[in-house]
């Protein structure tokens, strides 16, 4: 019997979902605490930050780029947000400033990549340090905390029984999916990643798109910082250390090719959920955080290994 067409064209995504489901099944057998509403909401909450950053990285990686600066940009944007709130700015305005700072950092990345012709790895590695330094400078290395209750709602509020951050994440994913599938920009991202020169010769505004892609990456890192700051009720200049690696991992587990041109936003969401569920489940099982690191690393390797085995079998 032939599998349904949808499964053939979305084989990789179906695989990711299958892994996720199996993982959940195993965990619910191993511990009764896993499959409870409160725990699942907890997982979702913990996944939110990584998931939102990973959307931006998915765009960047789809375009055959990489962004190592998102963790630092998150920290910088977070302290800007916190300082603005402390200075008495209205919440929407403070959030706007925060996202703007993130997008500006991303724009710098994009300009360096598109016009300075720096390899994305180098450009964003540089900015990773610059943004971190900036965050430490403006705060003098100290956390900024104490915000209005209306801001805290972003972390603690619920709508229809689902926490606000989860709604935010779902909103970001819905929009990101739509943009990728249904706008020129989305098509261009994939085309540039698939073949930059052919795209250029087809009239795709490659440089402008790249700036947009990295700006989006920075903006989403800043958006994640809003949720993180609200949850912790404080902004740390050392927040977001190695978050870029988690986001890259979620993207890769989700099936986006590091070579660019192939992948999906949906896959990244499942990838982020897999990481979240894994961490949560290992915690519930009382596995030490040291061992957790080993497990997560192995999962990342396994995901990519499966991909290459799958591709190899097609030869």
């Amino acid at each position, binding site marked *: 019997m032939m599998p349904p067409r949808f499964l053939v*064209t979305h084989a990789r995504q179906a695989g990711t979902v299958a892994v996720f489901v199996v993982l959940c099944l195993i965990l619910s057998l191993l511990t009764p605490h896993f499959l409870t509403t409160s725990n699942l909401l907890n997982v979702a909450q913990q996944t939110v930050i990584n998931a939102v950053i990973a959307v931006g990285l998915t765009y960047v990686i789809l375009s055959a780029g990489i962004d190592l600066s998102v963790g630092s940009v998150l920290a910088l944007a977070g302290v800007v947000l916190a300082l603005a709130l402390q200075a008495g700015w209205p919440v929407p305005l403070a959030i706007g400033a925060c996202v703007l700072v993130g997008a500006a950092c991303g724009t710098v990345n994009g300009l360096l990549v598109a016009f300075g012709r720096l390899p994305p790895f180098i450009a964003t590695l540089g900015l990773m340090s610059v943004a971190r330094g900036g965050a430490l400078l403006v705060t003098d290395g100290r956390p900024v905390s104490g915000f209005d209750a209306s801001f805290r709602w972003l972390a603690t509020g619920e709508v229809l029984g689902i926490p606000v951050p989860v709604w935010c994440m779902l909103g970001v994913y819905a929009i990101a999916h739509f943009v990728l*599938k*249904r*706008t*020129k920009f*989305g*098509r*261009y991202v*994939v*085309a540039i990643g*698939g*073949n930059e*020169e*052919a*795209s*250029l*010769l*087809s*009239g*795709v*505004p490659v440089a402008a798109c790249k700036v947009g892609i990295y700006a989006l990456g920075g903006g989403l890192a800043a958006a994640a910082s809003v949720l993180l700051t609200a949850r912790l009720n404080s902004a740390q200049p050392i927040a977001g250390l190695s978050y870029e690696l988690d986001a890259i991992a979620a993207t890769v587990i989700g099936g986006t*090719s590091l070579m660019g*041109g*192939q992948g999906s936003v949906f896959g990244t969401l499942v990838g982020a959920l897999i990481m979240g569920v894994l961490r949560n489940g290992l915690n519930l099982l009382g596995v030490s955080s040291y061992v957790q690191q080993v497990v997560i690393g192995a999962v990342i390797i396994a995901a990519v290994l499966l991909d290459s085995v799958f591709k190899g079998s*097609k*030869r």
Partner: protein
Amino acid sequence: MALPEPPLLAMHGIAKRYPGVVALDAVDLEVRRGEVHILLGENGAGKSTLMKVLAGAVRRDAGDVRIDGRPVDLGDPRAAQRAGVSIIYQEFNLVPHLSVADNLYLGREPRGRWPGLIDRRAQARNAARQLEALGVALDPQARVADLGVAEQQMVEVAKALSIDAKILVMDEPTSALTEKEIERLFAVIRSLRARGVAVIYISHRMEELFQIGDRVTVMRDGRHVGTCLLADSTMDELIRMMVGRSLTEQFPKRTARIGEEALRVEGLNRRGVLHDISFSLRRGEIVGLAGLMGSGRTELARAIFGADRIDTGRIWLRGRAVTIGSPQQAIREGMGFLTEDRKRQGLVLCRDIEENTSLAHLGRFTRAGVLSPRRAAETAGRLAAELRVKTPGLGQRVVNLSGGNQQKVVLAKWLCREADVLIFDEPTRGIDVGAKAEIYQLIQRLAGEGRAILMISSELPEILGLSDRILVMHRGRLAGEFRGGEVTPEQLLHCALGAHPVA
């Protein structure tokens, strides 16, 4: 007479299936010691797959392979190499920054005094001997990146021989060579034949085959059609075997309805590349751009299209002076550019037909910023049908299409954009005979619809058969202009070589 010797290579009943496609359907191929065996067939006929099976790059589903009468396991490329099979692909497998000698012995370096060290002197000596045996004057210490295409190819040949290849497969070896280089290559092939090496030779250039081949095996649709002596066959017969029909009328006559000026270029200069180039192109006209490799034809196309900067010169489109600073601008002005290298510059290989078709004109399917994949698919579907793209569906990634079908997808992209000044750069490179005829018809039809066409080609029959007017380039200058139908191939070649035009 002695008993017939068993063939050096015998492949029997080779089958390979991919999802939805039968690539090889019980194919037989027998090659004798010391023969040049031509493998002929349209793209998608299964030649490459068959050769990949032989090279151990593709696993066969069924069939057996014998070399010297013994069954061989071709599980992976190394096993094939051990069995004496060596393949020279169109894209060379050389490390550009290493020397010729380093490349020849890559992975098999002669061991020096200590493990891990290389006996460089022995390596150089062996390399020199290999090259000399081939009759190639190449410095073993030269960096591969500094060599020309023909020389790099010789390095590939030498490498293949240095691992004692009994069977040497050459895939389109002449596609990037000049006439003279081709002759040198043929001399080398003949000396290999004399040494008892079996050469399997894949090419689309029919004239060549008769010069170099002993026997020919024709494939079609993954099947073996026939094997015969080249001396006993004619080009027409072979073409009929390949396509299942005769192609006597490759270039149907058409009555060109030439309209007003579409493109005019005056005094175009790009330092060191293009010198003082002026010409015009009219609606409904096909202008052929001939010249040797490196004469600046592609560079001219890129300059007009805004892909390379020009130093001086002016361009008019439909009588209006325009400044074209980027491909984006050129496209907005109604130009389309079918590049020489489809895979690198024309297509996003990992994406599907619809996405590639709509890439240059997404705005057409966008309303209020939202793309309608349905409408894009409709248009792509209509164009694919119109251009007769052979595919199971629009969702097919273009990497899985044959060369001819890929070229049609590139063309569909520009038709989707409704470009009416089209530049074709080697439109039939690496495309089989049947698809070539289709591309020719398409080009003529496009001109018939009033589009202006500039066609760069290295194939003289193509230039002579299609062009209303022919421009010849030599070292970055326009060296001559001829009317189609009033010029002989000899005259064109003369002009391209820089001698005075005879016209």
